[in-house]
């Protein structure tokens, strides 16, 4: 071992006994563990769901449509050298015995897929033979299926021949997360589950040489109808990854807080460390060490520290990743491949960047300390070089963090929010502290001293309060909302709120279905549903008449579900105009938000394209619609005379009490082609998502809290000498060690209580905003926060303060005062 490494190792060993180095090591350990966790998990998600998009698409190019794609659709397209296969995907209820489950069905024709492969148990190739079905493990578990079991699929029972472990071409959006089953397209007709007008996604998968695919892509794009989309390999966003990608970004943003706190802890720890190294550096320089060698000694010390924390951090990252993966596993469509081995090192790399970039400025400053410091106590020069170096390091560090987070705008937004929120809470906390301390100052023996100290330490108090209040707020909000929000949202609905949607009802089934419901005394109302696009306003194309924001309105970018009725739906009160009378053939009713946002008024004439036929109507009234009522709701309702001859399917929703759930089974047996959507199941899935995401981010925030506590410790350290000196002076003036200690503890207790109180108030505020604006339900008070947070914060402050502040013996006081 060279002299310099030996010196560095010895220095590190000695420093390990100091609080600032312990805080530094713990902070970089947490930062490395968290970064490893997110880098590895992110890579696995990307590799599994995003990067391998060729196999994810199941093809090189996909044409997707909400209407059937006939062979004529492809006429005139350059299909030479292109392989193609059609896929139909739709939601359906399948069952075995009394168990029913909503799944996403894919009806296939060979060859399938064109890219990637279907992984099944038992293994094999091809697609399910007619009469067979392949199901995902979630379906097996929930329906308690065994291989060879019969699965009821409309009129056609299918034999479960394989378990589907992984598959490409899962489709987009929420359907990609539903449990999937694969059937042969030949079974569709016999099952009767898909009738004309049923909601389904029709796709044609294409594959071929890149030149042929490019030519096809170019030829296809100009011919796209409004209900069609193209998903291509290079140009397209990953399909399934979006929701998971968002979840990952959310977790990464949670981690930003921990990383910032770690960085601040490391910076303050190094600052305190370097202040204590002036004499030592001057001595080593005096003994003949060159400045470059001195820099190397300190860098080696940091590298040794990094080696320690990187090993521990990677190991912890591995454990955390296993835990979070377990939580998310149930929600993942398929098992994820392992991460690239380099990703395991990204946490360590970020840790190295943190240590070196934060460590280099103070270290280089140490190398500039004059040897005369040993004689006269000269400090190192504080000049432009030092400031520039500090600035450059900060910029590099910020760039590194942003590069890691891969969402610079969101990260900068969060950073601004944290800084502003932190500043606000810092000031508030300080105001509250002084307010509380003033009456105490009058009554306590050392009260005036407490007040003076609160003023002296105000900068540190502001930082401590900002960190603690923000962290406790975030943690409380995440913790409460992970379970509470969905439950409360569900609880607000009346007990008879519909819990089933029934869609894809054909006109000829309507009468029979009405009878079915009437016989069972179920209160339902069927609504016709026709798909059409809003194209004209007052006789001219609508788009040019709107501003940019309106042009991007949700209702103009897609086909709308339209309906017709003679009477006003009971759950849609009118806010303007009146309902039509028989004979008002061109009268239409519009939903109030759509009318307001598009600037539409009573008397405006709207034109629609319904399957190529132009239909017009005049706005006769404006309706209020509560979209979360779980009733069939429509933006536009026509007069019956205008639309009743247009091809339509029907929709309804109804409430089935738990004891009548078996009815759903009767319904599907009698009407196998209908799609029954169990809202409870969908909400349970959504709640599962939120809870697991909440758990994962709560874990990250808990680690952030760990970083926050370290930072708290390091900030308390910064003023430790002053505290010790003050305490020594007090003790020599006749105050007992116990009284001096109580003064400190009182200060910590006060600031803890104030921080806890502020955190309760701000968490309550954020939760109230979530209730009011996101869920649109009345806010409620969370008493448990008020009971828990103030004592918790006070305990944390007192504990850390007690650990850092050791009592002084009288002889120590004397020595301290002499030295000071």
């Amino acid at each position, binding site marked *: 071992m060279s002299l310099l490494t030996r010196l560095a190792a010895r220095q590190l*060993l*000695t420093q390990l006994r100091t609080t600032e180095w312990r805080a530094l090591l713990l902070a970089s350990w947490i930062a490395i563990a968290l970064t490893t966790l997110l880098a590895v998990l992110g890579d696995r998600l990307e590799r599994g769901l995003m990067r391998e998009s060729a196999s994810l698409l199941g093809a090189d190019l996909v044409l997707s449509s909400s209407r059937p794609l006939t062979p004529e659709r492809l006429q005139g397209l350059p299909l030479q050298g292109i392989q193609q296969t059609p896929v139909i995907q739709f939601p359906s209820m399948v069952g075995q015995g009394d168990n029913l489950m909503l799944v996403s069905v894919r009806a296939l024709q060979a060859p399938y897929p064109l890219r990637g492969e279907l992984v099944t148990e038992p293994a094999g190739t091809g697609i399910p033979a007619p009469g067979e079905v392949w199901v995902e493990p979630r379906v097996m578990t929930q329906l308690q299926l065994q291989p060879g079991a019969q699965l009821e699929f409309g009129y056609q029972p299918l034999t479960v021949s394989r378990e589907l472990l992984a598959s490409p071409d899962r489709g987009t959006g929420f359907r990609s997360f539903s449990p999937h089953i694969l059937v042969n397209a030949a079974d569709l007709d016999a099952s009767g589950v898909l009738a004309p007008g049923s909601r389904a996604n029709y796709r044609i998968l294409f594959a071929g040489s890149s030149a042929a695919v490019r030519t096809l892509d170019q030829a296809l794009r100009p011919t796209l109808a409004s209900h069609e989309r193209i998903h291509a390999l290079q140009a397209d966003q990953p399909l399934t990854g979006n929701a998971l990608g968002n979840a990952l970004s959310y977790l990464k943003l949670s981690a930003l807080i921990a990383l910032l706190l770690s960085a601040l802890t490391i910076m303050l720890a190094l600052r305190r460390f370097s202040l204590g190294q002036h004499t030592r550096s001057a001595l080593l320089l005096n003994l003949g060490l060159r*400045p470059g060698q001195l820099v190397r000694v300190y860098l080696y010390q940091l590298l040794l520290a990094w080696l320690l924390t990187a090993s521990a951090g990677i190991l912890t990252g591995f454990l955390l990743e296993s835990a979070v993966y377990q939580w998310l596993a149930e929600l993942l469509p398929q098992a994820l491949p392992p991460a690239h081995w380099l990703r395991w090192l990204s946490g360590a790399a970020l840790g190295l960047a943190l240590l070196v970039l934060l460590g280099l400025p103070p270290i280089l400053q140490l190398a500039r300390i*004059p040897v*005369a410091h040993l*004689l006269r106590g000269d400090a190192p020069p504080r000049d432009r070089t030092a400031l520039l170096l500090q600035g450059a390091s900060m910029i590099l560090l910020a760039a590194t963090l942003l590069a890691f987070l891969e969402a610079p705008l969101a990260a900068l937004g969060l950073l601004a929010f944290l800084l502003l929120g932190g500043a606000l809470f810092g000031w508030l906390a300080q105001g509250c502290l002084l307010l509380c301390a003033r009456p105490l100052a009058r009554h306590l023996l050392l009260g005036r001293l407490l007040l003076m100290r609160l003023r002296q330490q105000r900068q540190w108090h502001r930082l401590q309060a900002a960190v603690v209040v923000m962290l406790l707020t975030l943690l409380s909000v995440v913790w409460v909302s992970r379970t509470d929000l969905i439950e409360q949202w569900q609880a607000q609905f009346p007990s008879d709120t519909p819990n089933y949607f029934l869609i894809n009802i054909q006109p000829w089934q309507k009468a029979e279905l009405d009878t079915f419901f009437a016989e069972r005394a179920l209160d339902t109302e069927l609504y016709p549903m026709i798909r059409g696009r809003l194209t004209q306003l007052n006789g001219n194309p609508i788009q040019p008449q709107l501003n940019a924001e309106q042009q991007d309105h949700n209702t103009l970018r897609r086909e709308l579900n339209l309906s017709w009725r003679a009477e006003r739906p009971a759950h849609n009160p009118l806010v303007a105009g009146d309902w039509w009378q028989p004979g008002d053939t061109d009268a239409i009713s519009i939903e109030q938000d759509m009318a307001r946002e598009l600037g539409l008024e009573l008397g405006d004439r709207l034109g629609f394209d319904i399957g190529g036929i132009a239909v017009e109507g005049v706005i006769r009234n404006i309706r209020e619609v509560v979209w979360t009522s779980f009733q069939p709701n429509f933006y536009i309702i026509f007069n019956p005379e205008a639309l009743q001859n247009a091809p339509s399917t029907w929709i309804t929703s109804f409430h089935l009490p738990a004891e009548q759930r078996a009815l759903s089974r009767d319904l599907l047996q009698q009407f196998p082609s209908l799609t029954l959507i169990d809202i409870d199941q969908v909400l349970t899935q959504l709640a599962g998502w939120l809870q697991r995401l909440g758990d994962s981010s709560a874990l990250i925030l808990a680690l952030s809290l760990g970083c926050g506590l370290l930072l708290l410790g390091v900030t308390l350290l910064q003023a430790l000498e002053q505290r010790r000196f003050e305490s020594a002076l007090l003790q020599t003036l006749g105050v007992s060690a116990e009284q001096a200690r109580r003064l400190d503890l009182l200060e910590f207790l006060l600031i803890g209580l104030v921080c806890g109180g502020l955190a309760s108030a701000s968490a309550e505020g954020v939760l109230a905003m979530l209730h009011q604006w996101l869920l649109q339900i009345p806010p409620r008070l969370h008493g448990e926060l008020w009971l828990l947070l103030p004592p918790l914060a006070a305990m944390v402050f007192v504990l850390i303060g007690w650990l850092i502040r050791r009592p002084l013996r009288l002889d120590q006081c004397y020595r301290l005062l002499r030295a000071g």
Partner: protein
Amino acid sequence: MSHLNREKPLIEAQDVAKSFNTQAGSVELFRNLDVRIMPGESLAIIGRSGAGKSTLLSLLAGLDTPTEGQILFDDQPLEQLDDAARADLRLQQISFIFQSFHLLPELDALDNVRLPLEIQGRKDADAQARHWLQQVGLGARLDHYPAQLSGGEQQRVAIARAFATEPKVLFADEPTGNLDDDTGQQIIEQLFDLNTNAGTTLILITHDIDLASRCQRRLHLQNGRLEEVPA
């Protein structure tokens, strides 16, 4: 101030001035100082607190630069040396002993003495360090850490460290300032014995008249002027 000696001085300060900029304006510590220090001689700089003794020592050792005038070390103007050359000069030719010992706490006595020798790249670092610790009477306490040594013992380790590199000049800043009288006396004896044997030039700062009187020459720094004090 002049010193009549036909030998060539090892250190020579010529018309040296030093001032500092403070918030209240420029403060001049001294002006027109001349001093010649011969090889092998011992010199004490005395004066009251704040007179500028430490600053003068820093200038003579090349740790600081004068506002005016120049310092020659072995005929070489120190201001012409860059930082690296000055560091090299300190490494090869200069040693210091400080009032507060300045030992590295994580190194034992032997390693503390061995450190500058290793920095010099000396192969005999270990043997030399042991030799010098024997010389100061700490042969039995080689593996003791500074915290396990008394103040006097720590200063002896510092003395061994200072002599071990065989410097041409030894600067000592109040070497007995942190020691009781008896221990201080022992340290002084040892310092002068070793200095005599090694033939090192010794420049020390002290308040202690007894200590100063042990030096061949004494210079009194007062009101910015340096005056020779007769024996």
